[in-house]
């Protein structure tokens, strides 16, 4: 890869710059005023809870990573192409390299998540303190802290992928890096989602519904667990989720690129490395775009975040056009990149349309809530189903456009589809920055409330919080659509890997094995969703018992004369979330392997297809319906249809509670589930192609 090697260095350099800026911003945030003693005390409870959970999570993940690393090292030490023949040889270096790449991928994802979360738990109190000076100052602290997560994530991913590829020159080894990142992401996302909703639901049901205590009231024993949950679920979890899609899409396209131009090594290397080029350009665009995210004295933070996203996309489009034209790349990659970017924006804003209180779906759901919880749920669920349509059409159009324009320009169509996913995700630096901003200002609001800060601080935090919710909805749309295109590419990569082992993958619905595979695959995302949501209800039930116990045994808590035992709820949430991960994690990693080894590569192909399609639909439905129910409740609370305390409000609270695990636990975890299953399949494809029961 002589002509493309400079681009790998450029990618690593861009990643290093991104991490350096993240470190600088990390220091900048820590240098800001940390507010009053009381605020700092509340923030320290959140910080301790979040750190303790992550420490436990990463300890558990270390054990998983070591176990899987050993399996990978052993399995990939064998010369798989000759598996089953007498000519089999053993290459421990290759197996060790793959295992090392896996571990490095997991570590990079963990470091990005940890950095993001540790700055978030420092920024929350500083953002609240800065609100005394005005909305602009408070916004800056929160957004720059979010940027630490965004920039660290893309930076570490670029450094990791670039370095592994530079050292090995083998995209399949980079696949190991991606698998490591995805495994961690799945557990971090699902665990964080279970944690955050366990605390949220338990705190609300006992605090708000049973006792009439307002949100974030310091008397509620679960209030700190709830605030910790925002960090472990929405910062560390969502960051790991996008890290996973970012790496997986890049690696999948590198794999496809390596299968192009078999007779021309220079061109082959050029298109293998092109996804890394897009990552580097995306980092540059994000670094510039972040500078444009500002609010004036009375400016609107939501507009500032959207402006940053659109400017970043525009800069990336310009940079990609310049590189494609000057670097003599085929134009198909440019169209695919642009199609991906456009789809990301369309899907993101579709999510915003279906979840914003200014649009018909939320307004209508709020209106019918006066007739009870059932009609609220039916209406919200129906709009959630409808919301999948524009997103799916967007993904379908991006697939068609990128496929045929790539073919037209002389590239493989599916390579174009993959490039569109990478194009969409290359602006992840900016997207994650906006997303991580949300939980930080949410925490700032909670700290202001608990520490009894001034009315001005609370009002400012309210305005910032509302913008964070919109950013969150857009990010989810981005993450899901990117995951959809990524897994389509991984699916092609799986077929490609199987093909290189002499098995021509023929996925026909007339083949009973394929049908069985499709059915099993289709049922996996719903099953995974059910398991994670049941974990939430199970853990919430235990926490409700604990909260009730504290109120019962210590009446002074409610009277405000005794301090609740916050740590007990934090501990319950952490323990419950970690224990709940075992079955869903096992399902994601071992089910595809089981299907492949037992039913064969065609059935596994069908399995992936089935899981991709139901996974995408479920992810979009759950994320959008959950956001819609949440905002329908907020719309009523703003003084419509009877306002707080009305029958409509009571119905909307039920809808919102149903939607909580939809939008923050199961829905967003499905992206990672289908990515992990596709990666596992691609990784083990050579072995499955060589050895399967049927």
């Amino acid at each position, binding site marked *: 890869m002589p002509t493309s090697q400079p681009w790998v260095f450029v990618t690593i350099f861009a990643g290093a710059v991104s991490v350096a800026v993240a470190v600088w911003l990390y220091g900048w945030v820590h240098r800001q005023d940390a507010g009053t003693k009381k605020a700092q005390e509340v923030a320290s409870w959140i910080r301790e809870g979040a750190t303790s959970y992550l420490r436990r999570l990463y300890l558990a993940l270390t054990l998983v990573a070591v176990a899987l690393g050993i399996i990978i090292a052993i399995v990939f030490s064998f010369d798989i192409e000759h598996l089953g023949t007498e000519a089999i040889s053993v290459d421990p270096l290759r197996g060790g390299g793959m295992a090392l790449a896996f571990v490095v991928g997991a570590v990079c994802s963990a470091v990005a998540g940890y950095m993001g979360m540790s700055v978030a738990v420092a920024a929350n109190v500083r953002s609240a303190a800065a609100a005394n000076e005005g909305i602009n100052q408070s916004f800056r602290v929160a957004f720059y802290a979010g940027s630490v997560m965004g920039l660290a994530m893309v930076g570490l991913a670029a450094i990791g992928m670039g370095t592994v590829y530079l050292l090995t020159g083998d995209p399949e080894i980079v696949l190991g890096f991606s698998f490591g990142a995805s495994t961690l992401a799945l557990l971090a996302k699902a665990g964080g989602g279970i944690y955050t909703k366990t605390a949220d639901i338990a705190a609300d049901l006992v605090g708000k519904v049973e006792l009439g205590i307002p949100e974030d009231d310091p008397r509620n024993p679960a209030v700190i667990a709830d605030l910790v949950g925002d960090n472990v679920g929405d910062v560390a979890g969502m960051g790991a989720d996008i890290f996973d899609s970012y790496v997986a899409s890049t690696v999948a396209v590198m794999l496809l690129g390596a299968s192009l131009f078999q007779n021309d090594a220079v061109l082959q290397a050029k298109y293998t490395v092109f996804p890394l080029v897009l990552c580097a350009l995306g980092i540059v665009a994000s670094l510039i775009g972040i500078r444009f995210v500002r609010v004036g004295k009375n400016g609107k933070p939501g507009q500032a975040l959207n402006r940053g996203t659109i400017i970043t996309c525009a800069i990336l489009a310009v940079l990609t056009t310049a590189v494609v034209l000057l670097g003599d790349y085929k134009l198909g990659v440019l169209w695919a990149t642009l199609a991906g970017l456009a789809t990301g924006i369309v899907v993101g804003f579709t999510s915003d349309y279906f979840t914003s209180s200014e649009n018909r779906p939320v307004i209508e759901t709020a209106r019918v809530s006066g007739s009870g919880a059932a009609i609220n749920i039916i209406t919200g669920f129906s709009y959630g189903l409808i919301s999948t349509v524009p997103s799916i059409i967007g993904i379908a159009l991006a697939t068609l456009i990128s496929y045929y324009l790539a073919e037209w320009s002389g590239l493989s169509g599916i390579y174009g589809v993959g490039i569109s996913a990478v194009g969409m995700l290359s602006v992840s630096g900016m997207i994650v920055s906006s997303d991580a901003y949300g939980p930080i200002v949410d925490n700032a609001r909670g700290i202001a409330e608990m520490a009894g800060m001034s*009315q001005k601080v609370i009002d400012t935090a309210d305005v910032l919080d509302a913008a964070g919710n919109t950013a969150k909805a857009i990010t989810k749309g981005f993450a899901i659509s990117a995951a959809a295109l990524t897994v389509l590419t991984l699916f092609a990569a799986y077929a490609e890997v199987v093909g290189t082992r002499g098995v021509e993958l023929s996925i026909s619905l007339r083949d009973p094995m394929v049908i069985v595979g499709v059915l099993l695959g289709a049922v996996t995302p719903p099953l995974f969703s059910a398991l994670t949501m049941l974990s939430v209800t199970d853990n919430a039930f235990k926490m409700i018992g604990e909260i009730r116990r504290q109120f019962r045994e210590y009446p002074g808590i409610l009277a405000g004369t005794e301090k609740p035992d916050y740590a007990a709820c934090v501990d319950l949430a952490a323990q419950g979330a970690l224990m709940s991960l075992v079955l869903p994690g096992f399902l994601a990693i071992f089910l595809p392997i089981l299907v492949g080894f037992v039913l064969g590569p065609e059935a596994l192909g069908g399995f992936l297809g089935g899981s991709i399609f139901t996974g995408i639909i479920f992810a979009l439905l759950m994320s959008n319906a959950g956001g819609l129910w949440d905002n329908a409740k907020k719309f009523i609370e703003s003084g419509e249809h009877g306002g707080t*305390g*009305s029958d409509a409000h009571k119905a909307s609270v039920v809808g919102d509670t149903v939607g909580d695990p939809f939008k923050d636990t199961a829905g967003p975890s499905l992206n990672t589930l289908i990515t992990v299953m596709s990666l596992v399949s691609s990784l083990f494809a050579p072995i499955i192609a060589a050895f399967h029961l049927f």
Partner: protein
Amino acid sequence: MTIHLYLSMMPEALIASMLTPEEFGVYYAVGARKKARGQAIFFEIAPDFRSDFLHIEEGMRRCVPHDDGSPKRSIYISVYRVLEHIPLDVIQRLYLVTHDGRVLGVEAHEEIPKDSEGLHLYQEIAPVHPFVVSTLGPREFYELIVKNPVTLLSLPAICFVELRLGELAEDPKYGAVRDLPYSSIEHLRQCLVDLSTKTVHTKMVDRIHPASFPYRMMKNGLFVGNAEWLLYFPLPSQEELRAKYYRWWRSANM
């Protein structure tokens, strides 16, 4: 320890307690292990008040600290026909307590608010607690019930609040509901329409309505009156509540 006398409106009762009004409010709303919790409204009355109908002296005598030295929280002196036996000049201050025990003290005001145009909605709190709509302003409503009844129904004393009707006050048929949290809003609307088309001045919306109501719906304040006069306790403005009594305001808006 000082012994206080509290006249509870929800439920109607006279209570002796060693707790200060703020402590008593918290205890009354959330502090009891075995009793029901919830919204509370009570007045502090002059501790030297005595009545032939109420065994206040005996209640005061029984109100002694516990063995461990902690203050006696409540001695119920009477739970029946209390309001009618309390002269209004012994009432010192009103306390509004939220479901979760946030306490707001309110002073009486000399001027009764002028009757505004349009229809009115009243939540009677004691001694009975129906939900009533009326064409009459608060003073006229009180006079109709206590001083100059035109029907067989009258009360010796009354405690009530006027609740906001929003656009329905002026336009019961087509006015927007917006943030009115009342159950069976269409029935309420119909009652208001009936008022505007019939000759009666008041109409019962719900005769078994609980006495509790959302504080955020109070239009102006709380009224308490007997055959002699009417006392008015104005609620501070929303802005003042938010700025000065944030915790109470937030709980009251739940």
